[in-house]
């Protein structure tokens, strides 16, 4: 894909678990185990899944907050996962991040001005002091905070306002792509709407690409162009928003959609309630990782691991059911609307 700003291929991150008498490695957490996707310029790709599925690890691996176990991360044609720290440093400007908790991600001992000026200085983007001040002021305008608030400290702001500061800091470096790791999850409903709208406006205005990591499907549907669903370190389905929500092609996506409570009392919908919990990523199940909870699992699912493959144009799914004729495939057809009561 030529327009891709970010390409991730077969990304793996295994965290060693130390234990035993000599403190050697006794096992691994297979947090991310072979994940590939690409994001085009100006596109939003959402990574959804439940806690522990590895979605945040993917974000951190792209940011190179740790070294990856295997795979490739390519930013705008340049491979960045193998770069040395010093060559990577100027490139870090192009990928910025907004984290979930705006309380712990701002330094309490720095004024807002210094928080926003730091990336501008670090990357030598300001010509002089006046230019720096001007840039900081423009950032405050962009995130709709009053310019005179730059002299205040983080604790003087509410959660929503702090998240605006975090967004402004990410924008300060003029990135190509922003990774939002549950960036609106900790916010109250009415504030969440403000930040969602702000992110959408900024994306349109600045043509940013975005990797939107979230567990909230309703917000994802509102924000995104494409969606990748993760389960236990793997992507199980990728599709455009409309395809995914109208005709999910993986049993896990189906269950996820039907599990979201919808604010419509008395809505008639098809319910799929999964049994049990997500298995441990230390010892993921053999075969398809979802087979322990899948309502449609059959023999082959317990043995062979299904590969992610295209079932329709632009719609990828990792499920053996797609080898069956449509009449025997419960995932054939478009039943998204029944699952989420969107009639």
């Amino acid at each position: 894909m030529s327009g891709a700003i970010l390409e991730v291929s077969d990304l793996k991150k295994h965290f060693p678990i130390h234990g035993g008498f000599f403190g050697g490695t006794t096992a691994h957490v297979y947090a991310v185990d072979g994940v590939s996707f690409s994001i085009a310029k100006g596109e939003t790709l959402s990574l959804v899944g439940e806690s522990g599925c590895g979605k945040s690890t993917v974000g951190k691996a792209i940011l190179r907050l740790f070294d990856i176990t295997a795979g490739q991360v390519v930013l705008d044609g340049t491979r960045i996962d193998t770069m040395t720290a010093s060559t990577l440093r100027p490139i870090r400007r192009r990928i910025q991040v907004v984290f979930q908790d705006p309380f712990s991600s701002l330094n309490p001992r720095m004024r807002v001005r210094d928080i926003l000026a730091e990336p501008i200085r670090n990357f030598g983007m300001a010509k002089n002091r006046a230019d720096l001040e001007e840039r900081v002021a423009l950032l405050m305008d962009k995130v709709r905070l009053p310019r005179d608030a730059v002299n205040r400290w983080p604790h003087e702001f509410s959660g929503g306002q702090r998240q605006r500061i975090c967004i402004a800091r990410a924008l300060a470096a003029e990135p190509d792509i922003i990774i939002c790791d549950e960036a609106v999850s900790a916010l109250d409903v009415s504030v969440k709407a403000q930040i969602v709208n702000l992110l959408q406006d900024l994306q349109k205005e600045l043509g940013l690409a975005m990797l939107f990591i979230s567990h909230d499907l309703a917000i994802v549907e509102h924000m995104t162009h494409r969606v990748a669903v993760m389960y236990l370190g793997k992507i199980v389905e990728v599709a455009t928003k409309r395809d995914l929500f109208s005709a999910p092609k993986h049993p896990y996506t189906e269950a996820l959609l039907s599990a979201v409570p919808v604010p419509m009392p008395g809505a008639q919908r098809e319910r799929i309630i999964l049994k049990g919990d997500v298995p441990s990523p230390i010892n993921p199940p053999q075969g398809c990782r979802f087979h322990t909870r899948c309502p449609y699992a059959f023999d082959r699912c317990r043995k062979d691991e299904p590969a992610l493959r295209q079932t329709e144009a632009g719609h990828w799914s990792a499920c053996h059911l797609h080898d069956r004729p449509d009449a025997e495939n419960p995932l054939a057809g478009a039943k998204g609307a029944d699952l989420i009561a969107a009639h």
Partner: protein
Amino acid sequence: MPEPLLVVENLQTHFRTPDGVNRAVDGISFHVDAGETIAVVGESGCGKSVTAMSMLRLIPEPPGKIAGSIRFQGRDLLTMTDREMRAIRGNDISMIFQEPMTSLNPVLNVGRQIGETLRLHQGLSARDAEAKAVEMLTLVGIPAPGRRVREYPHQLSGGMRQRVMIAIALACNPKLLIADEPTTALDVTIQAQILDLMRDLKHRVGAAIVLITHDLGVVAEVAERVIVMYAGKKVEEAPVGQLFRNPRHPYTQGLLGSVPKLGSSLTGTETRLAEIPGLVPSLKSKIPGCVFASRCTYATDLCRKVAPALEEKAPHHVAACHYAIREAVAA
């Protein structure tokens, strides 16, 4: 007409703080009928959890101060002695908290914790209590209950811990169950399991439920009647269908408009989310007019001066707004 199971009248829970009195709950009245599920919704800091804690007198006094009356089966909980109150907690009224990890005792096995209420309130022996604990674990759908009953909270997943919390809460067949954000800490597929369990248990056990939540989706799925709180006050109350179809208070309208609806890409309703401008006001200074006036787009001088009373805008539908009489704009 028999008196409802629980009648809360003019409940005020205030906290003394170094910089003034925090009016966390400021004059709330509502009732709960036997076997009914009501939801209390609102954003953080609106006083919904403090309302729940006040109902069981779990607010430390001082710095807290609870005033008003809470009549449960005709008796005022606020005038009871501590001993009488203890006989009610966990027995007639029980509670489920948000964070199952911090609300279970990490050094006692699950069976002991479920059995504790049974031994205290029903005088069961240790052996009978454990047998009943296994029964309760089966009821809440925990596989291999005979083994799990001896396990400790850290050996269970988040969803299972919440099931244990529910088992503890239901052990003595309470008449009223207060659930404070019971699914907020859980993943969606696990949340669906727990909501399903709560619905199912409600039919079997018949307890009334007061559900405290900020999630309007959860409200729509389980509640029959909804109370919307804002800045320590009840601003609207209505049967669930009516509230979602025809919200009367501008705050409720804003709240409903600010949640993206799943399926928006299918129904072609991908509109910009409604924002409620501004922030929740500080509860430390008394607000003269309507508590929502500072953020309300319809606010007039009247709103800023005179606090609106709760008025019946439609049958069983009350809202505290001077202007909510006109038909609501569909949210």
